[in-house]
């Protein structure tokens, strides 16, 4: 029994780690979504965190905990001058500007010879332990849970629902949006630092547009109305390929396309039928049942 569990753990260790890392990334997108802003620069922030941590452990020989702190702090500091001008623009334009930022970071790294350009940094010491990742996820969830229902949590909800009206209530909306951008950058950087010291290597192309799309998809599929929704989404969508790998031979589609197809269909189904994400599924089912009962008693 214990041996089997140990086997299972050995097989899926990397999946378990990535559920946690992806949860951090999904939460990093959630923070700005929680005040109604679609900011998609988090692949860039994650890259900054990953590179900062890897360079500090490898070149400066910093102890890992300090390097991880830097992975949190450096992107957070970068987010401030980025956020001040960028948060004045809204909606789709904010999304595009932040995508632009992410690409600038990625292409900057590609052209930076000191970090081996497109090849990236290799042979990074493996220092990330599973408990560290999950401790970080738990801490992030705790902070977000404590924000909810507080003065600041209400301010964020007010900004999401009607920003100009929130401003007339004395809420300094730009500061809140900036704070959430910085928090998101810190979480993305933390995930990057962990990832670099888990997979032995970082390369710029791991932090492209596709990566930030993944983060957004985790948050939306899980549910972006509540802080734990993104974690549900990240866990589900990180496990999905493992399941599909088993299923693929049965349906006669290659695992690669099948994974993309299912990802796309799940995302489409959620956005069309469950706008508040998978976490709203139980309530939707209850509503649907109630409607059926009502229809039957009416008939």
């Amino acid at each position, binding site marked *: 029994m214990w041996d089997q569990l140990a086997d299972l753990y050995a097989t899926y260790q990397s999946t378990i780690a990535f559920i946690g890392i992806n949860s951090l990334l999904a939460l990093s997108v959630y923070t700005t979504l929680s005040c109604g802003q679609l900011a998609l620069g988090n692949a860039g922030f994650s890259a900054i965190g990953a590179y900062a941590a890897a360079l500090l452990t490898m070149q400066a020989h910093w102890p890992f905990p300090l390097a991880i702190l830097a992975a949190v702090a450096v992107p957070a500091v970068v987010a401030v001058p980025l956020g001040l001008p960028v948060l004045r623009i*809204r909606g789709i334009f904010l999304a595009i500007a932040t995508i632009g930022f992410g690409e600038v970071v990625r292409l900057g790294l590609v052209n930076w010879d000191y970090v081996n350009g497109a090849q990236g940094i290799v042979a990074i010491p493996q220092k990330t332990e599973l408990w560290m990742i999950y401790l970080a996820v738990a801490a992030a969830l705790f902070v977000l849970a404590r924000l909810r229902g507080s003065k600041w949590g209400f301010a964020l909800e007010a900004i999401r629902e009607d920003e100009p009206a929130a401003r007339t209530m004395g809420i300094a909306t730009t500061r809140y949006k900036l704070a959430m951008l910085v928090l998101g950058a810190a979480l993305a950087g933390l995930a990057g630092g962990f990832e670099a010291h888990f997979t032995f290597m970082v390369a710029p192309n791991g932090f492209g547009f596709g990566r930030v799309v993944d983060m957004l998809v985790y948050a939306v599929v899980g549910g972006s109305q509540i802080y734990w929704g993104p974690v549900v989404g990240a866990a589900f969508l990180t496990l999905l390929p493992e399941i599909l790998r088993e299923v693929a031979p049965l349906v006669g589609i290659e695992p690669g396309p099948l994974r993309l*197809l299912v990802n796309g269909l799940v995302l489409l189904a959620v956005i069309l039928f469950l*706008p508040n994400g998978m976490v709203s599924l139980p309530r939707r089912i209850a509503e649907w049942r109630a409607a059926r009962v009502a229809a039957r008693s009416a008939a």
Partner: protein
Amino acid sequence: MGQQVVNGLFLGSIYALFALGYTLVFGVLDILNLAHAAVFMLASFVALTLVGRFHLHILLAMPLAVLFAGFLGLLLERVAFRPLRARADSNISGLISSLAMATVFEAVALEVWGPNISRFPFGTVPETQLDLLGAVVSRLQLTIVAVAVLLFLVLTWLVKATRLGREVRAVAESPRAARILGVDVNRAIAAAFFISSALGGAAGVLFGLAFNSISPDMGRSVELKGLAVIILGGMGSMPGAVLAGFALGLTEVFVTAYLGASWRDAVSFTGLFLILVLRPRGLFGAAALREA
């Protein structure tokens, strides 16, 4: 130098064509259709199959592929955008649903054509080279620039001078007012999607011919460059998209020539980012900065 200008114009015309469709949908709906690049890619594959498998002449295969792309646009509108139109956050949820459709399209391409680079059979287009003011130009390149300019003129005429165009513009101005004026809003939006995707498809086929390299992820880099182009041109502005498309094409060619290929995209995206921060209306466009 002259050669560089010619290459830049040629690359720019493909960007312009791609961005033209991108910006049309944005102008009408305020929605970013992130599946545009997937349509671009699928149309290219369809043209390839028509030429390679069914031995059609490219002059016949291309219009068919473009038509196919137009129908993909109708499908997109029906599945990914129309159901969300009433939602308050339709421009964000629309972005996500178009992303979902893009993923599905890419999965289909991956399953049908495989992950590797496919190529048109040799001799699909004549390989004639011309000499133009000291620069070497292939007939294909000239044709591509001509097709792009022609399609831009046709689109301008369509939007400015036809009834359908007037209806589309009315919907862009205000869907509610358009409905009161008797415009069939759903039909106008569907038409905009058809035209937009057909243009994207045309860009895809030309791109495939020009670089003779077609793969399921070929749309990705064009997608982000298309964003840069429509921002540069002013979101929703068609002449802006065309000018910006040529500007990007020329910039890329010159950056590659003088700084090296690896700086090409960095320059484009730094430009995109700076424009959004400093001059969100775009360099050429007068399109109003819309709020979410």
